[in-house]
């Protein structure tokens, strides 16, 4: 359940803070792939949490 709370925090935190992130993406000098890298990191984090949940429920 603790893992679920982390996920909830992640999603709602992301929801509230994402406009801040987005405003910087289109600025000159920012790598075009930056949003995708952040997204990739989020996926990796979810994968990690998923593995942790499996261990937690074993």
């Amino acid at each position, binding site marked *: *359940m603790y*893992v*679920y709370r982390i*996920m*909830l925090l*992640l*999603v709602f935190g*992301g*929801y*509230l803070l*994402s*406009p*801040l992130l*987005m*405003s910087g*993406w*289109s600025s*000159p*000098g920012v*790598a*075009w*792939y930056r*949003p*995708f890298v952040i*997204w*990739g990191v*989020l*996926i990796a984090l*979810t*994968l990690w949490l*998923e593995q942790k*949940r499996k261990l937690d*429920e074993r």
Partner: protein
Amino acid sequence: MSAELANMPLVHLLALGSGYLLVLFLFALAVERGWIGRGLTRHPAVYTLALGVYASAWAIYGSLELTASSGYGYLAYYLGVAGAFLLAPVLLVPIQRMTRTYQLASLADLFAFRFRSRWVGTLITVVSLLAVLPLLALQVQTLGDSIHLLTGSTSPGRWALAFCALSALFAMLFGARHSRLHARHDTLLAVIAFESVVKLGAMLMLGAVALFGVFDGSADLQAWLDGPGQLHQAAISQPDAAHWRTLLLLFFAAALLMPHMFHITFAETLSRRTLLQASWTLPLFLLLMAIPVPLILWAAQAQGHDQAVASAYLAFVLADTPWVGALAFLAGLAAASGTMIIISLALSGMILNHVLLVAHPPEAQPNLYRWLRWLRRALIAAVILGGWLFYRLIGVHHDLTTLGLTAFVGMAQCLPGLLALLYWPGANRKGMVSGLTVGTLVWLAGLWLPLLTGLPALVIVPPGLEGLAGEPTWYVVALVSLAANSLTLILVSLATPTSVGERAAAEACSVDAVIRPKRLPLLAATGADFKRHLARALGDKVAEREVERALTDLGLSPLDGRPYALRRLRDRIQANLSGLMGPSVAQDIVDRYLPYRHGGEEATDDIHFVESRLEAYRSRLTGLARELDGLRRYHRRILARLPVGLCTLGVDDELLMWNDALAELSGIDGTSVVGARRDGLPAPWGELLGRLLAEPGDHLYKQPVELDGTTRYLTLHRAELPADDDLRGGTVILIEDHSELKWLEDELVHAARLASIGQLAAGVAHEIGNPITGISSLAQNLRYDTDDPQLLESAEQIQQLTDRVSRIVSSLVGFAHGGRHVSGSRFTPVAIASVTEEALHLIRLARSGEDVRYRNFCPPDLEVIGDAQRLQQVMINLLSNARDASEPDGAVSIAAERDGDMVLVSVTDEGHGLDAHVRDHLFEPFTTTKPPGEGTGLGLPLVYSIIAEHHGRIEIDSPPPGQARGTRISLWLPTEREDGDTTDEPDSDR
């Protein structure tokens, strides 16, 4: 749109599209026929790819359009759904649990189940249909536009209709094969996954063309973006924070609410593990789908082609070669056809269950399954045709973003209801319906009707929110409609009462709620009754199949009449019918034809069911609940493993517990009787427990009960559990097996009787022996004192009679000493053959029975540990009994053999045998089968006591196995000395 792009002949494009759909048919056929292994078609990746149905034509064309206008704002479409799947454990898994338990195949099913109203299902269906039409039209429009752009065709609508028809045909063939919605369609899932692979592959290739064909890799692209691209970037208006969040919310809602997403996520019965895995695999798929989108836009802008066509279709102008256009067309076709197929399937089910079947319930259709299947097929065609008509009706003047957002804002109207369904048991039907109606009306007036009619949007801005006036219509409508919807739902729910049925359904739907069903008796008493009752609604065949199916699902026997089993069967049938006809119709049928009996008795909680649910929910419990559940399990285990039989009965006499010890004692497994009524328990338990309950006291001692052919003696204790507001009442019963105690008591009484008879016999023998010796001496003297033949004869007779009395007296003395070893010698090895031979020698000396044949089969080397004299006494007794029982010329055989660490000695005759009554009392003193005066009835009791003294045992078979008549006495004597076997030590009671 420019016709100068017409770089592909229409025939080629049609051949490409038809060829692709043909490949899809062949692929579906290959899966259907099993040419592709199930290991592959059931792989979790297939599910993730099938969920990729979310990436509709919007993901191919609409995203490009949105990127052109809002830059990275297009990512909201992907991130919204990724967020919903990130929350799979707290959002999707509870919905999946509900849909699976109650066989709910659509959003309308879920709402109708939760809010206990068929009209709620109808309302959700209507809203879904209205919301989905723009999305369907978007799919058709992209097809039409693509055909027009690539071929210059002037009637793209007609060709788009052809592709729609092929998609509908496909959905009818492979999606509506089962009349049951809630079933895993392997073929369909595999095909949608295949389509996802095609669109992903095509998009990645287009992205690669942009990045490496147009630009010279990532660095070159970055240089362009920081240089000439700046101009294009400046033209983009990034969505502000509020718009972005609203977009995210809309797409988040779409992941849960859109009929095609709901269908793949919940109606296709997939494992919980697969769903949880999708929390990262689906975002990964969407990431790969999203990356090429801005690349295509930037490549088109870099080449200056961005003005050639509408921004949505920039992929067509990425390169001059026709295959790039073909690739973009294929990606769009794969996305559009997949979306249309699943939407049509999902919506056809909703319309069927919540509009058609509600309006015309299926009253005993002769072939219900076929009828439902064909209705669904017709509806699939109608839905896709509806999408095409909507596209034709609204014209091609709307951009994809407007169409898409109209659909997503409409569908989001169900979000407040869904969240209330999951997290707020206080929400009621009136609140939900009012909220949904208000929200939908705002949406219809602000977005949907203007789309259809071309009239200006009627946007109602409530007082205090005047700041919204200059904002985009979609944003204002989304905000106002959702706010009005949520507020109305909350206020009306708080202001109006909630029905009992709704409250029960709310508990069933709430996350982490434990369902507390009530125990109510049913009118139907067996599975056969169920079939008969249901046949009136469904027809004989369907009723039989549905009841059989539910029985198989539950692993129950059709003869199981336990109230608990019948209640589960009813629930299962309702769930299965819900999968077939939706929850409203299913509930109607079950309520009408399988009603509860209302006898005035108060319904109590179904504890057994609650417990079985708790067992299943264990992994979901946390914190205090988990600790309490651990305690519950511990206490339950104590009761289950108690080494004394225990059962509990509810106040309605229903059996709630049957522990392991009782299962072992009774030979009845707990699972087969728990939930049964006390009077329905197998004999003798129903009657026995009834007797205890009727008893004024709380105990019944040593009740004889026939179990497995033997009589056992059970002691029962009872304790009442008084019911009050918080605690459930009932009776707890302890059952102890006192059979061994009873046998020991009987043995003790028997031994005491033998001992007192022995003392009596010794006294009698002593008192009679002396006068008899005197009489015998006097009679002998008389023979010498007279020659009178008459007197001599009398003396002879006196002598004979005193001899007889002496024999009786000596028997009595023998019996009195029986079991008491008088010689004081230790046991020694004794050859059975010599003992039997000597006994035979003595027997043969007797005058009677000379014509009986004796056969001694004892091996000479077989030895036992014992007292030779006393064993000889045993053999003489047995052989003389056998001789007396034998007919003239009869045979008596003696045999001996080793039997483990004992020696079995048997004496078998072919005589008249024994009555069962006599056999049971043969070892009791004075029991004899001989004529009066010939037997004392002390021989066999003496044998018994001597054998017991030797630690052996004795058995009687009359007639022996394999013989028509006769008797066999079998003796088991030990071959080894036991520790402490010193029988010369005086017994304390001697």
